[in-house]
């Protein structure tokens, strides 16, 4: 053993062989390991499924409060069982006590919110800490008792997966089945309560009862999860899978299933990793696995994911910049061409366009590179000219812009000198249909040079824009 640690990575763990990994993942690495992995996976499924509703009902932190509030119940149950002369460690007794104070905590939170001016956050924070503090005091009372057998109570705080037995796996299987059954039976009611509780009440759904049922499921998941991941981290098993699943779907059915799958996967992979690597507490590893899955969902999900949203954002910005560039070129060519007596053609200086728009040099060169790749312009040292396709596109963009300006001047009665910026903002979102309609109505008023060609600008063109 070293006296001094040199770095955080210096843990010199022994890596398991591929065979060991395979045996653990296929539940063949010994009876106990198999039970633990299976139970963790079942717990993950149950908690994930239940957590989906807790998340949608905005009860995440309430679930956290519930979990913390179980500690005094565990201690009280132990004390009472000891006083009655029984063996205090009996798991069912402890879990019953945990459920009682857990539910009591939630009831107190709701009573505080209903009867006082304190908000839910303060109610949850105070109840959570005070109940847990009471639990800590009771544990210290138990430690003073010296009756023996009290050693294991602390394990409910952080969980102790290794202590799980076959009966625990059955318990989790039963809980997972029960959760699935209740969810299947009340799916319609849960859905309507989660998305619009007032509407639910108006169509005769008993919102209060449904909330109670959902909360009871959370109690079940919490209590059976106490042994595996402990009461501080059980909230993670409820919330993280559902929060991760939310990125992948907008529909409740798939969300619930996916939350169950992500929860089960976290339990399975986390418990396996904990079994394979030294000094990896199962509860923490399971939660971290769920956290990694959440992060992956946050980044990679197709429509709600951060990367997808970022890509969309960049695409839109590039298109807008490209539109502006095309119009700037068109207007330059227009003024130059009008002076020379012919239409828009020829090359113009990139620097002039960039200066008009106050673009940075690297930004402008990146943009023109992209536009050249799209076949809109051709670049030759310092100047650019429109390709035929680019010219069409530039004409279309300019037309949209000026039509919109016309509209703002004619119908919204804005001053001609004020419409350029607002048209800049709107023009990119105009659909072909709206543009055609605008053009028709302006044609009818004789304000257009002809169909398909840009109208004259309502304000003088050129000079830098602010």
């Amino acid at each position, binding site marked *: 053993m070293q006296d001094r640690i040199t770095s955080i990575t210096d843990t010199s763990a022994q890596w398991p062989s591929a065979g060991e990994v395979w045996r653990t993942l296929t539940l063949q690495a010994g009876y106990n390991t198999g039970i633990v992995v299976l139970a963790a996976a079942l717990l993950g499924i149950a908690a994930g499924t239940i957590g989906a509703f807790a998340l949608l009902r905005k009860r995440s932190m309430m679930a956290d409060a519930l979990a913390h509030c179980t500690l005094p119940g565990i201690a009280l149950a132990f004390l009472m069982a000891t006083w009655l002369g029984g063996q205090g460690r009996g798991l069912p007794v402890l879990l019953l006590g945990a459920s009682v104070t857990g539910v009591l905590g939630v009831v107190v939170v709701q009573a505080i919110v209903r009867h006082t001016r304190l908000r839910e956050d*303060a109610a949850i924070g105070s109840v959570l800490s005070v109940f847990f503090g009471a639990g800590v005091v009771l544990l210290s009372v138990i430690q003073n008792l010296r009756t023996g057998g009290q050693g294991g109570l602390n394990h409910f705080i952080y969980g102790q997966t290794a202590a799980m037995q076959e009966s625990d796996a059955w318990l989790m299987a039963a809980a997972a089945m029960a959760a699935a059954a209740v969810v299947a039976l009340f799916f319609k009611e849960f859905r309507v309560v989660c998305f619009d509780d007032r509407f639910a009440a108006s169509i005769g759904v008993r919102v209060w009862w449904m909330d109670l049922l959902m909360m009871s499921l959370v109690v079940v998941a919490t209590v059976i999860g106490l042994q595996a991941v402990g009461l501080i981290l059980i909230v993670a098993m409820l919330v993280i899978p559902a929060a991760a699943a939310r990125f992948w779907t907008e529909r409740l059915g798939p969300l619930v299933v996916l939350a169950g799958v992500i929860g089960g996967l976290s339990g399975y992979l986390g418990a396996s990793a904990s079994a394979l690597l030294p000094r990896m507490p199962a509860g923490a590893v399971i939660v971290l696995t769920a*956290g990694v899955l959440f992060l992956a969902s946050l980044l990679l999900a197709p429509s709600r994911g951060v990367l997808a949203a970022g890509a969309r954002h960049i695409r839109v910005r590039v298109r807008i910049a490209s539109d502006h560039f095309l119009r700037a070129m068109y207007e330059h060519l227009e003024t130059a061409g009008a002076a020379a007596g012919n239409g828009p053609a020829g090359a113009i200086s990139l620097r002039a366009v960039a200066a008009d728009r106050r673009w940075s040099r690297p930004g402008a060169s990146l943009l023109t590179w992209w536009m050249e790749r799209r076949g809109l312009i051709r670049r030759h040292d310092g100047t650019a000219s429109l390709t035929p396709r680019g010219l069409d596109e530039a004409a279309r963009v300019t037309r949209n812009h000026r039509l919109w300006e016309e509209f703002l001047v004619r119908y919204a009665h804005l001053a001609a000198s004020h419409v350029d910026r607002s048209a800049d903002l709107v023009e990119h979102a105009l659909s072909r249909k709206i543009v055609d309609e605008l053009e028709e109505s302006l044609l009818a008023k004789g304000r257009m040079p002809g169909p398909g060609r840009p109208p004259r600008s309502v304000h003088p063109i050129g000079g830098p824009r602010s």
Partner: protein
Amino acid sequence: MSPGLHLFISLDLPAMLTGTLAMVACGLLGNFLVLRRMSLLGDAVSHAVLPGLVAGFLITGSRATLPMFLGAAAAGVITVVLIEAIRRLGRMEPGAAMAVVFSTLFALGVLLIQQAHAEGVDLDPDCVLNGQLEAVFWSPPPDWGGVLRAALTGGLPRELLTLAGTALVAGAFVAMFFKELRVVSFDPALATSLGIRAGAMHFALMVLVAAAVVASFEAVGSILVIAALVCPPATARLLTDRLGTQIWLSLGLSIAAGMIGYLLAITAPSWLGGASSLSAAGMITVVSGGLLGLAIIAAPQHGILAKRLRHARTAVTVAREDLLSTLYRLEESAGHHGLAAEKALLALGGGRTARKAVAQARSRAEVAHRGDLLVLTDRGRDRAQALVRAHRLWESFLVGELGLAADHVHPRAEMLKHITDPSMAARLKVGPASGKLDPHGRPIPE
């Protein structure tokens, strides 16, 4: 100095002061968390600083306070930033974002502790929750001069000094930026328009909360930290409507909870017959919760009892006024002077409210017993007249001005008469609808 006193000064006093200072430092800042409905952020931060604490420790390899403090403070700030980022990027509600962030970071902390354990380093996860208040002690010489010298030359326990500094900084921050914090807490938009940088204020508050949480952490554990952030401010909030008063109250409540809680923890075992003491941090938490519970039930203005009492009083007043106007109407319809007492109770809906209403009317000399009958006294008749007048004026107003049907206005006028004072009645009388008779043809008494 007696040996007992010396023992108290070396063992219990520093621990008690440390716990109390933790309550004070967190409680002062907690006022603004409670007001901004961000109490749970304190909860999240207090869990999530764990990996920072351990990492600071692992990286430097020493148990010195500064690296651990810096690591934990960094983790606290990262937590706040992460929660905000996930809330925005994932479009999640803040509670879910908090739960995701703090539980994952806490799990990371637990994992790091286990890894550190293998390196022969003992960080007990239980200490993280419960703290080591009992480990705070010093050993000054057993005379007053020695105690004073040791205290002045910095011989005090490290945790005590750290927390005293933190409490001072928190107090100074609240005192210096009271105006800004007030505006930001109640109306961030107004704050921005006044030129106060709400974002910067928020960030400063968060950094200080993280610092207070970390400073308190080692001594009292994360659970007491949450209670310290939420309970005293929430209690104070129930006792007053003014922010300044609230902060002073929360300060007093923090000190009270710290002292009472600690003393209970060391004295309670002797009642239970045990030898060692109970968890002091837990007991301080329970006491601060007890104070909150007391305020919830018994606060003068916002307590549940006060609300119930106000409600009951109003109900009795309404019933008494109903009794008076019923008796007046009976007199008016001739012949019926008075009403049998049982009948009167029945007419008022029976029960305690009705009995109290009759008793109140009697004690105010508005009704009197004549044989079995309750009759109006002169004084009661004056009051009843005013009530019936208000009732009939309202009926005229509702029919004449608002155009309601005459057969629909009685119940409304019945409610309105209880809240009509003479000046309102006079204005109702002025309207064009005012006549001598109400819509039902009964005279409006003058």
